[in-house]
């Protein structure tokens, strides 16, 4: 019996010993062109911004009064991709945005309420883009669906995008088509609500009205030499529906008051160019210029320059400056200066003749082993900007962008 036990024990030890001598071999390298088809998370981008503004030309009160406003905005986007059987790449970009704002002027729609719903609001806007691309040729096409909702506004969006790349990959053509079908709840200032609405508190809204926007975008980018590349973009847009903000008041020379009224059609034509130059190993010059025109009479020139300076290979500091000069719409007049016979009128200083300066700086960290040693935190960018407008409005914005890979 003892012999049997000893034999079993020796056999068991033999099996163990034999197994211990088997070396685990690494999987042989795949010599075929097979690529994993599993959906893979490529990167996550988180962007958060805090914005604060102050001024004294609120459109809600007819061009006078506080424009104090704060906005805390956040977006998270997830980019995922896979390859289909034919080797084409599918990229899915899901974005979720949430921003919360408080606006002192919105509370003046109905000053009798201590804090109306429009004084503070939260907007939620998810979107999903699917793009199918050929990695070899660089050509791609895709579709986007989006949604946005806040207290008095709801938007449904759809888009199509197309990219064509030249054989030498030095010229790229992009085309985009977008449509936003929006519904705007019509809210009138308390004193302009019809008598049938009672005291206005029971019926804040006079129903809803559509506002639809359609835009196309054509752009061509070109590599000019190993240090210089350029982009030209034309983006015609057309809007139809309620384009005026009905809770904004307008005061006339005869002392009367009416709700803002603007044409129900608007054509916009912005034309822009970008030119980026790698000046030295440490300095890059990024420039942007845009000319804008529309059928309301607004004309604008916008010029931007940003000079990223590479402090090290992985850290860059980017001071920037933006200048905007605008000729206002023909429908604009300040508080109490509207002609009573006018068909269209606004005292919204955003549509007036103005010029603005926006300047600040950003810092970007992208070390190869991750920001702060965290391997997955691929990039961190922090930007601050100060905005001042000739109408007296000033604002500050601070933005944080984190990229996780």
């Amino acid at each position, binding site marked *: 019996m003892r012999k049997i036990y000893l034999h079993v024990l020796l056999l068991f030890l033999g099996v163990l010993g034999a197994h211990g001598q088997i070396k685990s071999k690494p999987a042989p390298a795949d010599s075929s062109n097979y690529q994993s088809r599993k959906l893979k998370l490529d990167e996550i981008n988180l*962007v958060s911004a805090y914005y604060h503004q102050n001024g004294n030309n609120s459109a809600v009160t007819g061009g006078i009064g506080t424009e104090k*406003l704060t*906005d805390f905005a956040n977006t998270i986007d997830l980019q995922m991709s896979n390859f289909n059987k034919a080797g084409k790449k599918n990229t899915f970009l899901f974005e979720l945005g949430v*921003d919360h*704002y408080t*606006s002192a002027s919105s509370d003046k729609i109905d000053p009798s309420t201590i804090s109306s719903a429009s004084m503070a*609001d939260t907007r939620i806007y998810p979107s999903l883009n699917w793009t199918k691309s050929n990695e070899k040729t660089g050509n791609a096409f895709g579709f986007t669906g*989006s949604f*946005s909702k*806040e207290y008095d*506004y709801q*938007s449904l*969006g759809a888009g199509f995008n197309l990219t064509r790349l030249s054989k*030498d990959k*030095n010229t790229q053509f992009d085309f985009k088509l*977008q449509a*936003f079908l*929006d519904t705007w709840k019509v809210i009138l200032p308390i004193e302009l609500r019809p008598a049938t609405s009672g005291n206005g508190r029971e019926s804040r809204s006079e129903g809803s009205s559509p506002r639809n*926007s359609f*835009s196309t*975008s054509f752009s061509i980018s*070109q590599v000019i030499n*190993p*240090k210089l590349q*350029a*982009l*030209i973009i034309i983006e015609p847009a057309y*809007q139809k529906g309620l384009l005026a903000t009905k809770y904004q008041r307008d005061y006339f020379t005869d002392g009367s008051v009416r709700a803002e009224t603007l044409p129900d059609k608007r054509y916009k034509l*912005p*034309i822009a*160019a970008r030119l*980026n130059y*790698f000046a030295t190993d440490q300095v*890059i010059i*990024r420039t*942007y210029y845009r000319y*804008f*025109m529309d059928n*309301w009479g*607004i004309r604008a020139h*916008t010029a931007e320059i940003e000079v*990223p300076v590479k402090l090290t290979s992985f850290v*860059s500091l980017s001071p920037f400056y933006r200048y*905007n000069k*605008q000729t*206002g719409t023909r429908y604009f007049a300040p508080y109490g200066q509207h002609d009573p016979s006018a068909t269209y009128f606004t005292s919204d200083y*955003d*549509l007036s003749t103005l010029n*603005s300066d926006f300047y600040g700086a*950003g810092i970007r960290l*992208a070390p190869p082993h991750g920001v702060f040693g965290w391997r997955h935190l691929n990039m961190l*960018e922090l*930007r601050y*900007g100060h905005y001042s407008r000739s109408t007296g*409005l000033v*604002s500050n*914005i601070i*933005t*944080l962008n984190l*990229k996780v890979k």
Partner: protein
Amino acid sequence: MKKSIPIAVLLGSGIFAMSLLSACATVKPYQKNKLNDSEMALSSRTAQKFEQSFQLYREGGSGANGGKSGGGCGCN
């Protein structure tokens, strides 16, 4: 005079585009290490999205900078 501005801008853009294309040298993929630097991207920065968003509401002119051209409002 005012009506001639859009034509002048379109004409200017066309001439600018043509002069860019004619000035181009063929750049091989191995010569693109500077062009591929993330700071050289021809799109606006991701961190600029909210700056462009508030500029969209505070100024009458908009578009052609990578942002949306209407819809979704947030027009506080």
